[in-house]
């Protein structure tokens, strides 16, 4: 295990800001795994740290293939995690809106550039990502359609779903997109929570990365589950979005991963003062809950659920 500080910067009064990379094996830059990037990504940080422990063991027991080098960056933004702030400590900018970065630019552009300089030459890249809306997802691999994405490789994670969508203007500054532009095969893994640890989802994520490394011939690792052999590929347009018709207190009745029939109640909205039920939210289709909000209040129009409609799998 080689530990490197790949980027550092002084701070007016705090300790130096540092990004550390843990590298296992020697040879071609084969796989890079990026953990937390925002201050609330505790689950992502935890999964990355467990992968470091696991790869250390794998290296010591000669399970990493010769000529293969695997790096893990558990956190790109320890400064924000340490003060429990989601975005950059001083100016509230999001590092994941700064790629590919600029080493003569603003602070978070420099952080992004420092990171990207180290990670851009890898053959494969995995970002343990979180969503900007509060809620739980079915475990899935997300890819942006750039022409360089490889769905066949994404299947090796054994996640039940692979989501692909066309790039929007804001995607051009994300890590995943820029990795692909620099010809790294990039995958974003979404599983479970963000700011608290979900052990089952952590296990599933770790298993998925191990499966990918094993099937791609980078390392031979044991896994606790078998994974999905034939994941469902979901294009953005196949997801049915369900929004709140009214604001109020939200009582969620269905979780991500649950099967629903058309007409099943997904959630109830309760009056915040008078306690009566304002409305029921019923599923317009039969299918599987892909995303479910996990906050207990909602604005009008807030996205509450995304459902994969049955029979629209391909």
């Amino acid at each position, binding site marked *: 295990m080689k530990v490197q500080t790949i980027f550092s910067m002084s701070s007016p009064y705090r300790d130096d800001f540092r990004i550390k990379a843990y590298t296992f094996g020697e040879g071609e830059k084969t796989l890079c795994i990026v953990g937390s990037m925002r201050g609330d990504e505790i689950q992502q940080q935890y999964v990355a740290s467990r992968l470091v422990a696991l790869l250390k063991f794998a290296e010591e027991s000669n399970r990493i293939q010769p000529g293969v080098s695997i790096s893990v960056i558990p956190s790109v933004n320890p400064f924000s995690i340490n003060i429990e702030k989601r975005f950059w400590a001083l100016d509230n900018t999001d590092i994941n809106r700064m790629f590919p970065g600029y080493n003569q630019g603003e602070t978070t552009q420099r952080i992004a550039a420092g990171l990207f300089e180290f990670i851009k030459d890898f053959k494969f890249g995995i970002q343990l990502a979180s969503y*900007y809306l509060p809620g739980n997802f079915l475990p899935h691999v997300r890819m942006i359609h750039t022409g360089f994405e490889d769905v066949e490789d994404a299947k090796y994670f054994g996640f039940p779903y692979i989501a692909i969508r066309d790039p929007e203007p804001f995607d051009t500054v994300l890590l995943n997109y820029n990795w692909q532009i620099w010809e790294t095969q990039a995958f974003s893994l979404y599983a479970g929570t963000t700011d608290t640890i979900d052990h089952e989802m952590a296990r599933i994520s770790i298993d998925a990365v191990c499966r990918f490394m094993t099937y791609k011939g980078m390392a031979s690792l044991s896994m606790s589950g078998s994974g999905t052999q034939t994941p469902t590929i979901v294009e953005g347009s196949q997801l049915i979005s369900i929004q709140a018709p009214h604001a109020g207190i939200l009582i969620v009745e269905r979780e991500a991963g649950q099967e629903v029939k058309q007409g099943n109640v997904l959630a109830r909205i309760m009056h915040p003062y008078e306690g009566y039920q304002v409305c029921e939210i019923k599923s317009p289709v039969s299918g599987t809950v892909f995303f479910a909000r996990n906050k207990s209040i909602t604005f009008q129009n807030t996205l509450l659920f995304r459902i994969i409609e049955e029979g629209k799998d391909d």
Partner: protein
Amino acid sequence: MIQNVTSLEMPVDEEFRIVKNHFTNGKGKRICIVTGTHGDELEGQYVCYLIAKMVKENMHLLQGTVDIYPALNPLGIDSMQRGVPAFDLDMNRIFPGNSRGSMIEKVAHDIYTDLSGADMVIDIHASNIFLREMPQVRISEQTAELLVPYAKLMGIDFIWIHQAATVLESTLAHSLNSTGTPCLVAEMGVGGRISHSMCHQLVDGIQNMMFHMGIWQEEPDKSSLKESIVSQGNDAVAFLNATTSGVFITELHNDVTVKKGQTVGQIISPLTGDVLCDVKAPCDGLLFTLRAYPMVYEGSLLGRIHRL
């Protein structure tokens, strides 16, 4: 007449509203004054007040329509947050929005739709709490030909024509300009403050534009209007970024010309009493941006100079 541009329910006994003041008199062109996209930028508040007052008290001079939108991000303004509270989103990265999208996307869509078709939209920004800007209009290269003459009518100090990154395609101005509604972005002052003289100057400039568009029947006091300095091209602007972290001290004001090698400021260490870095101008030019907030990290923007 106060009108709702959009309204939505909030969770507990509150309605979310975007409002505008709609002044109209006879047939004529329509100008929209828009501000408050970023909740920490307040210069536009005073500009809106001055224009609303001017129009209200002189309706006989109006020939057409003036719509004033003082707060596109009312939750942010009322709670001193730049982005949209509860969503942690930059309101100026979600245009043109989506009528069937989430709350913020729907709000963006309703704002965009309401503004579409106007003969001119002026979107007033006030930098942020970190940087102080001299009055300027920012225009992307693609729209320069159409918009620069309008910007000059405003007699604004500085016109910055810049290259547009793809990510900026989701701003209000880009969304409007790319669908045929001309939109000028004014930047001036500093976040969290109101700079009276700049606001009066911008109001004179807007009045002059309204006069030339035939919307207002009286010329403004032209003494505050300037011959705009136009900056265009990749190398026209030099950026000064902090090379070390510390406390930035400056004796200068923005809107001064500097000589190459001149001290713009210093980054100091209060702990040791040392000057950590002497910040010098890399070229002769107009210092149109200057840092207002003293704490800096490596990379923090300290100033921008238009090369002369």
